[in-house]
């Protein structure tokens, strides 16, 4: 029962809980803090059994005091521990962003490298029809703040491997888990269903080319990888070959892999479930254009959540977030235009 998910009927929240358990067993320095992560096993079930296995001191149910326990992570890290912090929804991180960006992110630098901040923050993000204050991904905002790594897995294999790598990292990492994934079975995903039986990590900052194609590079991450793959299938029948790249992390951003691909395809479409402006999609377009020079690129395009709060009504949410249809039409437009 050592968490080898291969073939088991397990959902992502169980996989996450098992992964944390494996890491906590491996490294007795890991302390896990958050609301409802202990006795109840997590609001999304992503920490089930850990309280029983590791006890209240290493798996700590906190009061609703995010500012306080995010700051605690700083002290724990300086004391030589390895804090794992759950912020239930990433939307709440505004309550405690100060210690995250001014201490967790900066202490290594401000101390001239003498202080390590091996802090991992897990938080749920993404749109599942739960309105403006519980639907954000915010990785674009977090990625802007130097000193933080920002990760968003798309499939079972990576949910485990990226989380393990984040926890193991000497650097602070924020992992945004998609709420839509938690209750899905690992076997239901279109990729990454093979989960090695031993411990493994997926290196932070290495994109994954999940589909090859010659006409268009589609870079994306998290749940949008799946939607993009579905669109790519359809486009294939139209004779459009789409190379789909799962970025896996926003920081480090593997623009090299994307640039290599665009050097071949000539076209870049970024699909992002975060707000459009001042985030991932603009950065990636800019880097690729800088890397290749604009004249080499035939077309760039971005499909992301528009710059508005997520509306409550599911019918409206569906109007605004990227989906297979919108990916299809964005891809067709960019390919058609030259």
């Amino acid at each position: 029962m050592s968490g080898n998910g291969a073939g088991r009927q397990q959902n992502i929240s169980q996989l996450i809980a098992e992964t944390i358990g494996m890491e906590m067993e491996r490294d007795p320095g890991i302390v896990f803090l958050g609301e409802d992560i202990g006795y109840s096993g997590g609001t999304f079930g992503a920490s089930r059994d850990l309280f029983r296995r590791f006890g209240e001191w290493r798996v700590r149910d906190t009061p609703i005091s995010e500012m306080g326990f995010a700051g605690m992570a700083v002290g724990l890290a300086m004391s030589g521990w390895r804090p794992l912090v759950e912020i239930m929804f990433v939307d709440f991180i505004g309550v405690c962003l100060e210690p995250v960006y001014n201490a967790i992110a900066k202490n290594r630098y401000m101390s001239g490298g003498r202080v390590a901040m091996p802090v991992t923050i897990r938080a749920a993000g993404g749109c599942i029809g739960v309105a403006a204050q519980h639907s954000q991904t915010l990785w674009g905002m977090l990625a802007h703040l130097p000193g933080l790594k920002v990760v968003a897995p798309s499939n079972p294999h990576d949910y485990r491997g990226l989380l393990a790598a984040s926890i193991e990292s000497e650097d602070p990492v924020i992992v945004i888990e998609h709420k839509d994934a938690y209750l899905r079975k690992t076997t239901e995903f279109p990729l990454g269903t093979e989960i090695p039986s031993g411990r493994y990590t997926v290196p932070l900052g290495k994109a994954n080319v999940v589909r090859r194609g010659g006409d268009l590079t589609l870079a994306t991450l998290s749940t949008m990888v799946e939607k993009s793959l579905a669109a790519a299938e359809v486009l294939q029948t139209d004779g459009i070959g789409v190379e789909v790249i799962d970025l896996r992390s926003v920081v480090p951003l593997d623009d090299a892999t994307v640039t290599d691909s665009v050097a071949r395809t000539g076209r870049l479409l970024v699909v992002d479930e975060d707000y459009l402006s001042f985030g991932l999609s603009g950065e990636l377009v800019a880097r690729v254009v800088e890397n290749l020079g604009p004249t080499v690129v035939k077309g760039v395009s971005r499909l992301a959540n528009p710059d508005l709060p997520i509306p409550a009504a599911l019918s409206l949410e569906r109007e605004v977030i990227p989906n297979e249809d919108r990916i299809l039409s964005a891809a067709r437009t960019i390919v058609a235009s030259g």
Partner: protein
Amino acid sequence: MMGDTAGLPPEHTQDAGPACRPERATGMSNAPTLLDRYRLMVTMRAFEEACAQGIPTGELRGELHLADGQEAVAAGMAGALRSDDWMVSTHRCHQHAIVKGVPLEEMMAEIYERVTGLSRGKGGHVHLFDMEHRFSVTGIVGSSLPVALGHAYACRLDNSDSIAIGITGDGGTNTGQFHETMNMAAIWRLPLVILVENNHYAISVPAEEVIAGRGIAERAEAYGAWGRRVDGTDVDEVAVAFAQAVGHARGGNGPALLEAVCFRFRGHYEGDIDHYRKTVVKRRMREEGDPLTIVRRRLLERGEVDETEIAEVESEARGRVRDILQKVRETPGPDAVEAFRDVFAEVPA
């Protein structure tokens, strides 16, 4: 509008008159009867049940937080609460909206994300806004309190004798905002009542494990503020204590902190498996701590009304909510174009 509110006669949410800057004296001159409160509570229970119906059908998603079991806290506010007072509530907000006079139909329509909803379906069940009835919500725990503080500050700026009610759960008192709000309200002697619904849990976390000290009400002392704890399953007790809290705040004495101890009958949200509370405890809670049962028994004991009258009140209230739900369900959702409206008031040409 009245046909649409919770069925309280107008004087029960004291109306300050059109100017909304009342000179009217403090107090419960229009005290609701216990039967009035019962009607309100039955309406609340029916309303929550009508919300719950949207979950199995998939009409509603997300963390729908219902408050069955906590009706006495909300209904206890009727009377002392005035229509020109401001109220800021939490994720568990429907009962508070009801006692504040937010029209049931627009509220239900918002919860069901219809075009006739308070926000045309763009806010949803944790983001109710009704400026006409001076009511708003935030889904972020603790953040209701500074907003209420802002209203209380505005009351002072306005030189009015309106007050603000900031509501939070027990869990919310552990946020920094609780401290900052209590302190600022106290130093500026603002007319603020902080009402804490202590239902013993913040999701799965028991209040006694995460709240240090003698209790929540006692924390008022740290700010030199008025503080009191009350049995939140007893609407009469709540009403008396809430009126005192309001009297304190409205009287210019600064903030009042009222802790109402109560039970949450359902899971934290619809879908919560609620495995962190023992079945036997949950059963006892419903058997012994149901504020509706308590009031019903008391009404009969007092002999002011009989079973028939009570049954009438119940069926009328339930019928009204049922009709509203039906009407809401027949109403369409918002137009697609709504998604792109209301981000900014002004967009550059």
